[in-house]
């Protein structure tokens, strides 16, 4: 299979944050408006269909969120479909669009990921996210979303000697870059001391180990490679897509120090793209919690198993290190509006590979970008490799 058949030709994103003034439809509008404003030679009329990624319609009460989304931006009449894979919803939407485009069903597809999370209380949002765990055998014990990752952290610390300092190093890096991203939810640096001494959420994770509850939307246009140059001189190609999954109950995993689905997804994506981890200039990884970024380093082959924490401590995932990771702030500082996250990863890589992001966080000469997007505690994983 050729791996230059499908391309991204435009991208946009709303401001992420607690957007009290904006509902789901308004966030969709903001990301779409920015996309077409920034796009070189593409208009709404070129769009044949939409794929809308929304993780949970319970957050704002609107069922069938794809319908209200396309109504808002004037794409009524054209086909639309919503996809969901918990927190991996955004990349699932891009993968679905890849299939629709490459299969020939639609030429050019607008993918929008969106989540309006702050309309409910934090307790309610925590509750809703907990219900993406097994409601029969794990939800009844009040295991929160941070709790699931805390179980991974405890196991990783025990097996490999991963330390709190290593975890906090991830938070420090991501806040460093998030402070330089005007779209980020929390644009503020934190010190290692602050990050290490924040109040506990789910031991051993504290506040600074956890991503934020955010509102936001992101959008990309996916089209056939042979049409791409019509829309822009510098398309970004989808070179590889891989996906994996894991048991519904976290207790029943073969291991708690790695996400099996992420390893499968990475291997598949690398193989399809014909590259290995060393070729990656820039990675957007799913740091819903700091431990998740450390495990991602290992699952993606940036570090040997157990060495992810050291990679963070050695600052090897800053720009100029071994591989630049989450230099937009990641889920930690940019924010994590569930359905938007994977699309935002794609939008960020699109801009990075075209040299268009803020200067102090631009990865110089980046040619290959990797997006790693995890649903719940590993039940869904998509890895997408993009290249110029």
């Amino acid at each position, binding site marked *: 299979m050729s791996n230059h058949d499908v391309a991204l030709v435009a991208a946009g994103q709303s401001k992420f944050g607690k957007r009290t003034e904006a509902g789901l439809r308004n966030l969709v509008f903001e990301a779409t408006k920015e996309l077409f404003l920034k796009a070189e030679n593409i208009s709404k009329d070129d769009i044949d269909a939409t794929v809308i990624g929304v993780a949970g319609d319970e957050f704002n009460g609107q069922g069938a969120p794809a319908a209200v989304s396309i109504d808002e931006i004037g794409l009524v009449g054209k086909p639309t479909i919503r996809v969901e894979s918990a927190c991996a919803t955004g990349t699932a939407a891009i993968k679905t669009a890849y299939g629709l485009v490459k299969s020939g069903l639609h030429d050019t597809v607008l993918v929008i990921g969106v989540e309006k999370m702050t309309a409910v*209380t934090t*307790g*309610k949002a*925590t*509750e809703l996210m*907990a*219900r993406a765990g097994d*409601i*029969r*055998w*794990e*939800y*009844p*014990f*009040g*295991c*929160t979303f*941070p*709790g699931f990752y*805390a*179980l*991974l*952290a*405890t*196991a990783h610390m*025990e097996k490999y000697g991963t330390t709190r300092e290593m975890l906090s190093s991830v938070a420090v890096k991501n806040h460093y870059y998030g402070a330089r991203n005007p779209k980020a939810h929390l644009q503020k640096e934190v010190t290692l001391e602050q990050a290490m001494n924040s*109040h*506990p*959420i*789910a*031991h*051993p*994770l504290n506040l600074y180990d956890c991503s934020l509850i955010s509102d936001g939307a992101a959008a990309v246009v996916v089209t056939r490679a042979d049409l791409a140059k019509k829309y822009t001189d510098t398309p970004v190609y989808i070179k590889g897509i891989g996906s994996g999954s894991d048991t519904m*109950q*976290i*207790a*029943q995993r073969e291991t*708690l120090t790695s996400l099996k689905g992420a390893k499968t997804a990475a291997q598949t994506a690398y193989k399809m793209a014909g590259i290995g981890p060393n070729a990656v200039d820039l990675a957007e990884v799913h740091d819903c919690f700091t431990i998740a970024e450390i495990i991602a380093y290992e699952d993606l082959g940036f570090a040997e198993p157990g060495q992810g924490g050291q990679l963070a401590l050695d600052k090897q995932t800053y720009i100029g290190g071994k591989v630049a990771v989450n230099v937009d702030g990641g889920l930690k500082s940019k924010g994590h509006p569930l359905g938007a996250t994977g699309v935002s990863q794609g939008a960020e890589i699109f801009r990075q590979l075209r040299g268009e992001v803020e200067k102090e966080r631009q990865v110089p000469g980046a040619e290959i970008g990797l997006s790693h997007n995890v649903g719940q505690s590993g039940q869904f994983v998509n890895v997408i490799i993009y290249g110029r």
Partner: protein
Amino acid sequence: MTKFGYVSVEDYVPLVGEFAESLVKGKIFATKCKACGKEYFPPREECICLNDEMEKIDLDTSAKLVSYTIIHVPPESHSTMAPYIIAIGEFPNGLKTMAHLVGVTSMDDLKIGRPMKLVPQTLENERIVYKFVPA
């Protein structure tokens, strides 16, 4: 009828009801596929081999601690219970499950690999649950 769990949102299927009633009597059962022999705990009505003839078997409730967390910020449904310890325990047959771990008093008691036992615990409002306790 007694319900399983500190909270529940699911439609209540017969197996979970039987399991809760069994817990009331102090019995914790697993299930085993009559076709391929695979065992399940928590119990299942159906096997991944797509057979649905299962038998109930006794669970050896001794377990070792595989991992744990202490929940300080709970979901709405557990708002009055925090902090509480959630543990994953592994049974002699290799099966694993999640439950609260109660009866430990210091972090020193939370050593990975430590012996535990899974026991029923009756709650208010006609609810019952299983929990890990030190063994």
